[in-house]
């Protein structure tokens, strides 16, 4: 038996213990993302405050933010963007959990079915939904040919695309994101040991209690991750609300797009300020969501110990 060496905590030893290899391995990916994403954000910020750019005198100015925030349209758009992102995420999360539980034992076929919409570009989905749900779309024609009295012309079909309730947008996001989430949740679900459910049943859990107390908590990290990806995507998406959404108000990304493509180059800093506000809001929401989703705020200790 050899005696355990006492730990020397000299700076040199500490440096030697740094897992350089791990940092070296993540460096290429991390630096690319940092330069592209972080660098892009910094440059965007500099442009938005007038320190950098095509126009302006190069002096610091918050005029672009004033213009962005001062416009009533911004607040309407923010509201709409949040509404669409929250509703689409919440609906797809709940439905995906249900679907994943339903298909849990259905084998590989279920996963395959969920992969169907994976390779379809959003723009293709948009085109399909336009031709399906628009007043002269396939569903409208189907109802007409079935002899439904209230459809005597395409004017009678309820507006489902470019409608004020954004039903078309929601339909598209659910159509695309539910299979995506279900696919992820099914993979996570298969990683949960089935014996845990068995053990819960043997300790007196009804199937419902088993789902609520065991399966759902174990699935939580998967749910948080998947819904985070979906929320971030929906909140920042441009083409879907642009082509399928309401004409007024517009979502935030459309506002950015319009300011960016405006012939008036003075609108450019406003576009960038709007884009930065959009990024800032999503980062704040994501931080909040991750904090709540970690379960840490709700964890309590037993036995009255500090």
């Amino acid at each position, binding site marked *: 038996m050899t005696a355990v060496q006492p730990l020397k905590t000299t700076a040199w030893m500490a440096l030697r213990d740094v897992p350089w290899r791990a940092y070296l391995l993540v460096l290429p990916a991390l630096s690319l993302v940092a330069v592209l994403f972080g660098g892009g954000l910094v440059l965007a910020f500099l442009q938005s405050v007038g320190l950098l750019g095509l126009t302006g005198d190069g002096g610091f100015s918050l005029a672009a933010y004033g213009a962005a925030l001062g416009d009533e349209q911004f607040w309407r758009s923010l509201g709409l963007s949040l509404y669409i992102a929250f509703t689409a995420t919440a609906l797809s999360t709940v439905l995906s959990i249900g679907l994943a539980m339903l298909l849990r034992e259905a084998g590989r076929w279920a996963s395959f079915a969920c992969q169907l919409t994976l390779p379809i570009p959003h723009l293709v989905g948009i085109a399909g939904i336009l031709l399906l749900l628009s007043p002269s779309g396939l569903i409208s024609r189907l109802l007409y040919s079935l002899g439904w009295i209230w459809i005597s012309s395409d004017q009678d079909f309820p507006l489902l695309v470019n409608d004020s309730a954004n039903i078309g947008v929601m339909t598209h996001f659910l159509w695309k994101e539910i299979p995506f989430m279900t696919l992820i949740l099914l993979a996570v679900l298969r990683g949960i040991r089935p014996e845990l459910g*068995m053990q819960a049943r043997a*300790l*007196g859990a009804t199937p419902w209690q088993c789902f609520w107390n065991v399966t759902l908590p*174990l699935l939580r990290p998967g749910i948080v991750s998947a819904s985070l990806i979906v929320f971030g995507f929906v909140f920042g998406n441009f083409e879907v609300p642009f082509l399928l959404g309401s004409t007024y108000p517009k979502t935030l990304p459309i506002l950015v797009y319009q300011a960016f493509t405006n012939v008036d180059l003075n609108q450019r800093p406003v576009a960038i300020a709007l884009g930065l506000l959009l990024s800032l809001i999503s980062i704040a929401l994501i931080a909040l969501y991750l904090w709540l989703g970690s379960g840490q705020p709700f964890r309590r200790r037993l036995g009255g110990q500090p």
Partner: protein
Amino acid sequence: MSETAYCAMQNLTKRFRGVPAVRDLWLDLHQGERLALLGPSGCGKSTTLQLIAGLLPPDSGQIVLDGRSLVGIPPERRDMALVLQKGLLFPHLSVGENVAFGLKLRGVNRADREAQALAMLAQVQLTGFENRRPAELSGGQAQRVALARSLVIRPKLLLLDEPLSALDANLRGDMQELILQLQADTGVTLLIVTHDQQEAVVMADRIALMFDGCLRQVDTPEALYQRPSDGTVARFLGGVNFFGAVAAGNRLRLTDGDSLTLDSAHQGPVQVTIRPERVQVLAERLCSTNLLPVTVAQSRFTGTQRQLVLTTAAGLELQAWVPPGQSFAVGQTAYAHLPPEALWCWPAAGNASVAVPEPELLSH
């Protein structure tokens, strides 16, 4: 089958894709009893346990617990608790929450269930562990938490499925001791499934031996060792000495001509067995009955005993496990004494020669 059985399995049968895993099983447990279901892996003992727990529906037969038939009763309403091989603590709950899990399901309020969980943790000597996560526990600690989690709901029947097989040998003894202590304290009826004969002997009042989905013998450990119903049972429990003989009353004539005395009467061709630890090896002819002159063919020291292989002049092979202090050289002549009360025999027509399942190694 007694009328007063606390838990009765009647005519239980379960097939998987037509292949029977459990066949026509009848077994009674008395209240407060410790029964071990022992058999090689794949013999159907875990299936039996799942049938009892309600995790599998039987193809036929029924289980009665405390006067209530459990046909169609889901697992959560059977008043049982099951401990599986690796403890299977819920990874998303703390140790304390794991123990309180069953109480929470039963609607016990938070203060009560926390108090009960803490008391139960104290009973399994894990005071102060309530806020740890399952991942921070050793295998033995996890298994103790699993035990506490099962006992805290005061089950009518505690089912243990190979509870100690994932633990290393030193720990296993302590755990056996703890389980016996907890069983004595709570008086819970215990059914333990194991492939380890040693564990079954230590843990159980009675052992039910199972091969190929069928019960072979249900008896006390002593009876199983001394009076196996046939060769398969004897071999599974470590029997190594088997020889053919013809019995006439208390007299046995071995095929090689030697004769032995029995303490019971038999007639006709029989199979004879004697446990190796019951064979006494003497350097000199100290008594006159049941003494066979032998040559030491092999001598192996195992730490706690010396295992000898002996051969008689007629070529009969005999194993004897003697205290380590006795030393015999290979090639030495000696005398093997087979005490009449240690000899056991059954009619030769029995299945002493059927294929014998190998007892499994202790570690998995």
